[in-house]
Each structure stands twice: as C-alpha cells, then as structure tokens.
C-alpha cells in the first residue's frame, strides 16, 4: 500500500520534472525573449510541483531520500514519467503541441486530485492547478496563433501535433497501482477524464484550423520504467553535476 502511494507520487513528480528539464533546453534559444521567459517560467512552475511530489514520495518511502536524491540519483528505468514528456522538443510548434496536450491533461487531473482523500496530495494539487491552468491557456494561444497563421506555421503546427498523438493514450491508462489507490479515493480515474480532454483539445484545434487526427495505435511503458531512448541522455545532462560531485552545495 505504501509502495503504491510511493509509486503514484513518482509518476506525478517525474512527469513535471522531466518536462521541466526538456523545456529548459529552450532557454536562450526561444524565438523571442518573451517566449524564452514563457517557457522558462512554465518549467519553473513544473520544477516546483515536482519537488513537492518527490519530497512527499521520499517521506512515504521512508529511506531518508529527499526530492534531490530522487531527482539526481535514479537511473532511467527507475523513472515513472509518461513517454510524452521525455520526447525531444522538435521545433517551437512541436513544443507547443506537446504543452497543449500535457497541460490540458494535467489540468483535468489536478482538478480531480484536489479532492483526493490524501490531504497532502490534495493540497499540492490545489496549488498546482492554478499554475497549470495558465500553462494550458498559454499553449492554446500559441497553437491557435500558429495553426491559424501562415502556411508554414500551420503545417509545422499540424506536424507537431500529429507526432505527439501517439503518446496521449498512455496518459489515460490505469494499472493495479492506480486501481488500488482509486478504490481508496486517493488516485484519479484517468479513463474518465478522456472525453473532457478530447473535447477541450478539439475546441482549440477547431479555432486553430487544425485537424484532429489521433493515431489508432499508442506507445506506452513510461509508468513501468520502459522508456524511449531519449530519457537517458536527458538524465545524463540533468544529473551530471550532483553525480560527479555528490557533496556539492550552493
């Protein structure tokens, strides 16, 4: 039971942490300074959410690991994030496509997690939901602007979106861990969020003059540590300093 809660908290924390690390790659490279600020600020919120979830995970595990230990001293097969967040950024349109999909999902999830019977999960979600709502709106603005923009921006936006659909089904799947926690009122019924998700995405895509074409097949495995080849290099960059100098402090 404690193991299940620990596992669930890793999934929540790792999603935020890995996406934040990916987004940081845009720092200094974004199309404009305002976009640079936008992406870095979204990443910052996600790191804040990750540290709250991972700190709690460490406390539940009871082995004396804090959020930093969990972030910097696990290998890729020990990470529990979904495949969507670890994928390379692609171009700016592709990054915004992923942000729309992830933040819309995350918003629906946190709106329900606010009611979790685990009071600490509920209060983290209540805090995070406000941030994520802003992220979802920001991503929607860009998807609409690029989709309903020039011929090239439209094409790139559509390509970015088409690429990421294969990672969406995984966000709404349950397993034994989550079914047990759901029965206890702690976890969220993921499949029940799907209809609302499709509706919200559909609404944005219509305004963006983009086609909604979910793929018929899905890639999955992140929740059990079966990651794509992209996670290890990301972790190598994120973890190199604390692993090389384990006692380093600011």
């Amino acid at each position, binding site marked *: 039971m404690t193991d299940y809660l620990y596992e669930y908290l890793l999934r929540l924390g790792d999603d935020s942490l890995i996406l934040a690390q990916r987004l940081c790659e845009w720092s200094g490279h974004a199309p404009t300074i*305002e*976009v640079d*600020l*936008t992406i*870095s*600020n*979204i990443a*910052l*919120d*996600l*790191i*804040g*959410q990750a*540290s*709250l979830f991972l700190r709690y995970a460490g406390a539940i595990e009871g082995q004396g690991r804090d959020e930093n230990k969990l972030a910097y001293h696990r290998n890729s097969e020990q990470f529990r994030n979904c495949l969507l967040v670890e994928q390379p950024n692609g171009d700016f349109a592709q990054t915004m496509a992923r942000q729309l999909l992830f933040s819309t999902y995350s918003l629906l999830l946190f709106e329900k997690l606010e009611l979790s019977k685990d009071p600490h999960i*509920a*209060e*983290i979600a*209540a*805090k*995070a939901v*406000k*941030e994520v*709502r*802003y992220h979802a*709106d*920001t991503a929607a*603005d860009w998807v609409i602007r690029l989709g309903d923009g020039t011929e090239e921006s439209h094409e790139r936006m559509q390509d970015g979106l088409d690429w990421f659909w294969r990672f969406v089904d995984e966000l709404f799947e349950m397993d034994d861990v989550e079914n047990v926690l759901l029965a206890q009122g702690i976890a969220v019924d993921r499949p029940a969020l799907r209809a609302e998700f499709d509706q919200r995405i559909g609404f944005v895509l219509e305004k963006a003059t983009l086609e909604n074409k979910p793929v018929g097949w899905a890639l999955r495995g992140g929740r059990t540590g079966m990651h794509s080849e992209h996670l290890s290099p990301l972790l190598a960059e994120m973890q190199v300093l604390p692993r090389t100098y384990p006692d380093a402090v600011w």
Partner: protein
Amino acid sequence: MDSSVTISRDVPTDVSDPIMAVLNSVPDPEIPAISVTELGIIRAIDRDEQGNPMVSITPTYTGCPATLLIERSVREALDEAGLSDVRLRTVLSPPWSTDMISDTGREKLRAYGIAPPPKGSANRSLRGEDLVECPQCGSTNSVEVSRFGSTPCKSLWRCKDCQEPFDRFKCH
C-alpha cells in the same frame, strides 16, 4: 492595518505584536516595495506542539525561487529582533491567491510601477479579461506583450497611450 494574518488567541498581543512588527519590516526580495505581510504570504501566527510561537508562510508559486530567500530573510529579521524562539513553517493550503494581497500592498505596487491585480479577480476566467490600467498614466488602453514577465507572478504589458511597458501582477 489591513493584514490578512490570522493571529491565534493562544498568542497574547505582547508576543504577537513584536512578531508582526518584524514581519511588516521584511520586504519581498523581488518586489521590495511591499512587505511579506502586504503580499499576503504570512498566513498565521500560532503555537507549535511545544508551545513556541510559530509563523506560517505560504509560497506564491510552487517553484518561486524567492520562497527560500523569504524564509531566510524572515528568520534573520526575527533573530535580530531577539525572537529566536519563534518557529517558521511552510503551509500549502489554502493556496495563496492574489486576493490575499492587502489594499495597502496594492497601492504600493501601483506606485512602484506594477499594475496590481483587481481585488476578487483570483478566480476569474483568464480569457477576455477586464481592462488593465497603466500604473504610469492610468490609461486602460493597454495590451499584453507577454503572458509571463520578469518573475513567475507577473506578465508584461504595454500602455498604448504613454507607450510605457509595465509589469502586471497575474490574477492567480
């Protein structure tokens, strides 16, 4: 004093008053024009299990880098005032919202050049929002330049009358 700090009845005023005086003197590190009490992040003064006075602080955003600095500044200010027995703790709920910024805080923000969030706007829809007043000239003929500004809590705007760019506190 329009502070939103809840002071427990277990804490007599001869204890809470000096603590409040110290808290009122600690500026926000990123927006030094207002104090941490005016920002609304000091939530309560009560007592811990051992009976020591305890101050509850809440972060504005989960990842706000100023959070740690604020805790340290409050600690140092309390120590300097001889209030080392006062404990600090971080609380997440109820989550901070811009409605917790005091009226005095809002006025000081405006004077400092940051458009304050209208009171009661925290849960308002983020889209199709109200008019935003330029803190320099008071015109509402303004436009959002960037949804995120220099800190997590602000967005970037520009006044179309006086042409000045300005920061706006995001409704949150």
